[in-house]
């Protein structure tokens, strides 16, 4: 694992080999991470374009700018791309792949070829999703609920195949990460000395392994039913559409934690670094990841409170949903306690992280409204729901994707970006984001249904505000990526440890050498021990 190989000076993983082929067949986890990053960002921007098109249509109550049909297809594709291609693989695929082995003091993940295979699955799935639009797209929403998905005239084959293959990619990554944490860890590092980002990826890996096969086979069944007429969920042939919903959410709610846990891991790295202070409650944070993974797998029923399930089931699901808020809150309190009396530096990654805590708190607390049986009946299927999950997903996971991007960019590419511009981008995003989704909270509370291409004139003001917010946000994204890209040419060379971090990636060259470390990784200090930290008693 830690053979003392010293690479020639100035050679790193980026310039060790050259040519497109050296990337396409690489088994270096860092290069695979970078390839994930490119893919994820490309498809993220594609999802943003769809968002802009839809929000433009929603500027007027009875707009026919996009046909209703096209709107429904864009809506579906936006969901599929953002969930399966951006949020699920985003942080684990790009930053997990790149940094998990380094944080463990390892040379690579446990199964490097499998890792490359999972990237290819990711790209194939993502492309299929896009091809499905060219072939007409589908209008079922990303949930593919039966019986409508059995009846719709649009082609289900490609998007479902896409989701299936992306699911495989996710499972392979999960298996790889779990085994890597167990087997590739530097023998001198115990499980409780692993950085918290690793813990969160470890818990995520388990959820990916446990939940994804369920949706995989369910989607296959849906295809078989549509393609070959095999009766499974079709109510006219005795099938039970609610069963489909159960199976769908048995995966898709845990999937929320597949998205969220890695983001929380990123917070646990950024906050100590920019507070120059050991993480508060290491074990609590570590175990809360595992607790979220465990409880989060048992709460799927709360998506189905209005399907007529029994009261006992509803109460149990409601209770469990409240319970999952506990480990999430434990994390937030620990992060805040970490900052307490720390020496806080508001660098760009820290700005994103602070936005995360703010936005995620709103997202989490409105989740409790929805988890409560009474309000749920009122709010179910209104715009309140998309507002809530965009606060958790984009405001939570998305902001941390950007946080992680700005945190690790210097290490990955060896260049410093313009921090002032990066922070301005973050703030503009924040304004746009709240404008969209806070308006949607209000519209939803007043009864605006989700997913609709049209609305009554009384909702015009909320939709207009939301659309303006959507445009502002899109501009912010472009600005942020432009700023990062420019740094590749014009940025100053990044030092080994620009932020004063204490985890292992900051104790190797920038960018890292092919084998991650020149010689043995330096484990003389713990993951959160800062030399300049003032001990408070």
């Amino acid at each position, binding site marked *: *694992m830690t053979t003392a190989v010293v690479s020639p000076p100035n050679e790193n993983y980026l310039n060790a080999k050259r040519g497109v082929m050296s990337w396409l067949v690489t*088994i270096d986890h860092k290069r695979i991470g970078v390839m994930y990053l490119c893919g994820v960002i490309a498809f993220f921007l594609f999802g943003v374009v769809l968002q802009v098109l839809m929000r433009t249509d929603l500027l007027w109550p009875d707009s026919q700018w996009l046909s209703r049909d096209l709107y429904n297809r864009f809506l579906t594709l936006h969901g599929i791309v953002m969930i399966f291609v951006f949020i699920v693989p985003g942080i684990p695929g790009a930053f997990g792949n790149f940094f998990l082995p380094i944080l463990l003091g390892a*040379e*690579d993940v*446990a*199964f*490097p*070829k*499998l890792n490359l*295979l999972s990237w290819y*699955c990711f790209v194939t799935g993502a492309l299929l999703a896009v091809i499905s639009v060219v072939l007409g797209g589908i209008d079922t929403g990303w949930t593919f609920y039966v019986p409508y998905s059995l009846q719709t005239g649009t082609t289900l084959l490609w998007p479902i195949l896409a989701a299936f293959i992306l699911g*495989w990619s996710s*499972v*392979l990554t*999960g*298996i*790889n990460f*779990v*085994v890597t944490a*167990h*087997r*590739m860890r530097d023998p001198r590092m115990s499980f409780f000395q692993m950085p918290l980002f690793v813990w969160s990826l470890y818990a995520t890996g388990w959820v990916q*392994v*446990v939940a*994804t*096969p*369920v949706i*995989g*086979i*369910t989607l*296959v*069944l849906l295809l*078989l039913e549509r393609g*070959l*007429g*095999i*009766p*499974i969920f079709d109510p006219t*042939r*005795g*099938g*039970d559409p609610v*069963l489909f919903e159960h*199976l769908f959410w048995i995966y898709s709610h845990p999937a929320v934690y597949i998205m969220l846990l890695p983001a929380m891991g990123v917070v646990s790295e950024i906050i100590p670094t920019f507070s120059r202070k050991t993480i508060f409650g290491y074990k609590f944070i570590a175990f809360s990841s595992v607790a979220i993974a465990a409880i989060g797998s048992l709460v799927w029923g709360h998506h189905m409170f209005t399907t007529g399930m029994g009261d006992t089931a509803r109460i149990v699901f409601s209770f469990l949903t409240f319970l999952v808020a506990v480990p999430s809150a434990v994390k937030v309190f620990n992060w805040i306690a970490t900052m307490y009396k720390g020496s806080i530096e508001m660098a760009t990654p820290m700005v994103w992280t602070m936005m995360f805590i703010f936005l995620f708190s709103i997202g989490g607390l409105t989740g409790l409204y929805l988890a409560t049986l009474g309000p749920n009946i009122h709010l179910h299927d209104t715009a309140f729901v998309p507002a809530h999950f965009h606060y958790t997903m984009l405001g939570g996971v998305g902001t941390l994707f950007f946080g992680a991007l700005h945190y690790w960019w210097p290490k990955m590419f060896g260049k410093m970006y313009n921090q002032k511009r990066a922070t301005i981008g973050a703030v503009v995003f924040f304004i746009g984001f709240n404008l969209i989704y806070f308006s949607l909270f209000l519209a939803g509370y007043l009864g605006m249904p989700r997913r609709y291409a049209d609305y009554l004139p009384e909702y015009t003001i909320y939709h207009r505000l939301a659309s303006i917010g959507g445009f502002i946000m899109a501009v912010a994204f472009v600005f942020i990526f432009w700023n990062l890209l420019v740094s590749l040419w014009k940025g100053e060379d990044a030092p080994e440890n620009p932020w004063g971090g204490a985890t292992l990636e900051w104790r190797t060259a920038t960018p890292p050498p092919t084998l991650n470390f020149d010689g043995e990784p330096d484990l003389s200090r713990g993951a959160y021990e800062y030399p300049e930290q003032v001990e408070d008693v």
Partner: protein
Amino acid sequence: MTTHSLENAQNNNEDSHGHYDPMAAKMGMWLFLFTEGLLFGTLFLIYAAYATKYRVEFEETSYDLNKLLGAVNTLILLTSSLTMALAIAALHRGAKRLCQQCCGATIAFSLVFLVIKGYEWYHKIHEGIYPASQEVQLMPAGKQLFYGLYFVMTGIHGIHVVLGAALILVAMHFICKEKVTQERSVFLENTGLYWHLVDLVWIFLFPLFYLIH
């Protein structure tokens, strides 16, 4: 794709790191089997839901399946698990030839299983009983679902039998090429694990479809 990924899961340690970590390969394989278990678990869950709702129809339809052929197939798969285990034991003792023979026997059993299963399917389809057929669509809902699940679950299991057999073939090739040896036997062991899973799933499928009345 499954076979390919398994192969990778088991091989790459040796190739890319120059060190052989059978423990990692085993762990990866068990996690993979876990996903397979959940895949079939989902199917069993659907079965359970419908079998409860349409108990009478499920029991009646179950009469129409050929119990004898089902039982023979169960015996065949159980025996193939034995030959698979013997192949691994033989490799551990360095008996390369015996190991190859046992692997060959396992593949032969898998083929017999597939032939019998294929005959059963052919027979049903010949009678006009397949999921989208006129005949089935006129049946009561419970019977339709029974046949739907029967074809889907035995079909997906059949695919796994094919994949398992292909994997054993790959293992035999590796043994031939000395890539899998007495000291580096984890590929064959993992193949065995996969084969036992295939067997295990059938042990549940058999009573659920053939013996419930």
